[in-house]
């Protein structure tokens, strides 16, 4: 057995605590490692939006009148937006609720790890999984459904900021909703229902020009509708603009709403986040 001398407390006090950013990186690496070791979860997380894209884009493939596109083409940006939201909002909402229930969070709280590092680690995880999910969906969309990748640097830039802002906003909302379920077991139901409703009223499953105005207006309060709209602007020809509510992609407004949700989501997280389940007080 190795024996160490008694350490005077002063020494421990003057030693520097590790920084939140670097610990966030190391937590991110750990989260990614854990995620990819759960094969089942990996396969289903990535397969879900792809299967839905395949189903919808194959079932609805008629030409959309006056827009110069097919319905299949509409589903590619829509499912990409839903894929970004599922890897961020849904997987964080469920996994954090489970971690809280299994007292992983409580254990972390008992260490000198800064809370920000935990959140940073989660953001890194959804950044990697979200990027992969988007790449897979775009691969399927471009090979099977006649969607072209952007050709101008401007459009690639739009894709990048919609991805980053949308992913961050949804990740923060996912962290916030993880505090709602009372146990890890009920987390999936609690998180999936609002996500499903949003997908119906934000133009993912059903085209925006067929959704009743009032439903679309409710959907417009949340990020998903704007992510869909922005991505349509990135991937669809200008002729498809007529399908939009205002007849335009409205990139400025998309950026504004998503950025607002990033700030609002952060505030919501800070106000509601719990390290212990209700059972543990």
């Amino acid at each position: 057995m190795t024996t160490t001398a008694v350490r005077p407390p002063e020494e421990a006090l003057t030693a520097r605590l590790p920084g939140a950013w670097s610990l966030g990186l190391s937590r991110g690496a750990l989260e990614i490692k854990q995620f990819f070791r759960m094969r089942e979860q990996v396969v289903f997380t990535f397969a879900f939006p792809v299967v839905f894209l395949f189903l919808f884009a194959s079932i609805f493939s008629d030409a959309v009148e006056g827009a110069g596109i097919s319905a299949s083409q509409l589903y590619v940006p829509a499912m990409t937006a839903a894929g970004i939201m599922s890897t961020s909002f849904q997987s964080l909402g469920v996994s954090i609720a489970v971690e809280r229930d299994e007292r992983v969070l409580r254990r972390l709280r008992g260490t000198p790890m800064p809370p920000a590092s935990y959140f940073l680690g989660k953001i890194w995880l959804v950044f990697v999984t979200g990027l992969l999910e988007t790449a897979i969906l775009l691969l399927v969309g471009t090979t099977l459904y006649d969607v072209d990748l952007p050709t101008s640097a401007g459009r690639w830039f739009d894709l990048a900021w919609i991805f980053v802002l949308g992913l961050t906003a949804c990740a923060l909302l996912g962290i916030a909703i993880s505090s709602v379920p009372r146990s890890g077991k009920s987390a999936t139901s609690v998180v999936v229902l609002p996500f499903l409703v949003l997908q119906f009223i934000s133009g993912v499953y059903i085209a925006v020009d067929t959704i009743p105005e009032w439903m679309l207006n409710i959907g417009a309060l949340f990020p998903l509708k704007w992510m869909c709209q922005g991505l349509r602007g990135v991937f669809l020809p200008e002729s498809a603009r007529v399908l939009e509510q205002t007849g335009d992609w409205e990139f400025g407004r998309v950026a504004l709403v998503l950025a607002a949700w990033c700030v609002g989501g952060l505030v919501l997280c800070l106000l509601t986040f719990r390290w212990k389940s209700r059972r543990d007080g």
Partner: protein
Amino acid sequence: MDIRKYARSSRSVRFKATLDGMTAHANELAVDVRGLRKQYGDVTAVDGIDLGIRRGEVFGLLGPNGAGKSTTVEILQGNRARDGGEVSVLGADPGRATRAWRSRVGIVWQDESAPAELTVRETVRHFARYYPKPRNPEEVLALVGLREKAGSRIKALSGGQRRRLDVALGVIGGPELLLLDEPTTGFDPAARRQFWELIRTLADEGTTILLTTHYLEEAEALADRLAVIANGRVVAEGEPAALRDRHGTEATVEWTEPDGTPRAERTGTPTRAVAELMRRFDGEIPGLRVSRPTLEDVYLRLTGQSDEAGQAGRITQEDER
């Protein structure tokens, strides 16, 4: 019990050494609790507890389930707000825990779970990064006896091995104070003995240790001092032997008559009883045994649980002596 005798002697040596080495902090209490109160709705879980734990000491918090042990420890960890009283842990209020303070306090939780998909080594190394002056992860793995399992995924560990990992994560930061909440619940006797050795090793290194338990023999085997709590109050406090002596002075003298009949006599003067027996028997007294009331007798009386079950417990306890 040989192990226990060995433990007791090594502990007193260690305690003295620790005191010599810490003259600067000689009078400083690692944990100082006065009038601690905690209410859950109408239920008073902690009803005015006072505790003083010295640096370098192993302190046992003993009591039946629901006595308020876990609530008390959670307040000391900084993971539960109190309703009243003064609490100082390593000189600071755990209700206002800073990162620096958390790096000096190690926690071993009750029924804890760790990330199942990571290996033991990955987990211990990762947790080491949280601390300003962590211990060497390989050294900690050796300390808790998990070196052979270092490459295994956590989900493949047995219950006892997981508990060892919990301890590894509790001590990886090199804490001055280690708080263990019912660390051996659900262990088989062999695993419990191994765990005790681990706690003693940590104590020998100078770590102040507070552990809660409802196993009496655990408190007696490990603790320099202990407090018995029942219904949210401290009902007795002191060294295990002193507690026993204070709360039960009658000894039992047992021997076997030449015709083979076992005899037992309760007496306040066991020495005189043995002297009388020596006069009656020429040479060795067959089956001679002198025993004090066990801590369990005292404990059951103090916590208001004394009954026939207590008597049965007493007999098994005596078998161990």
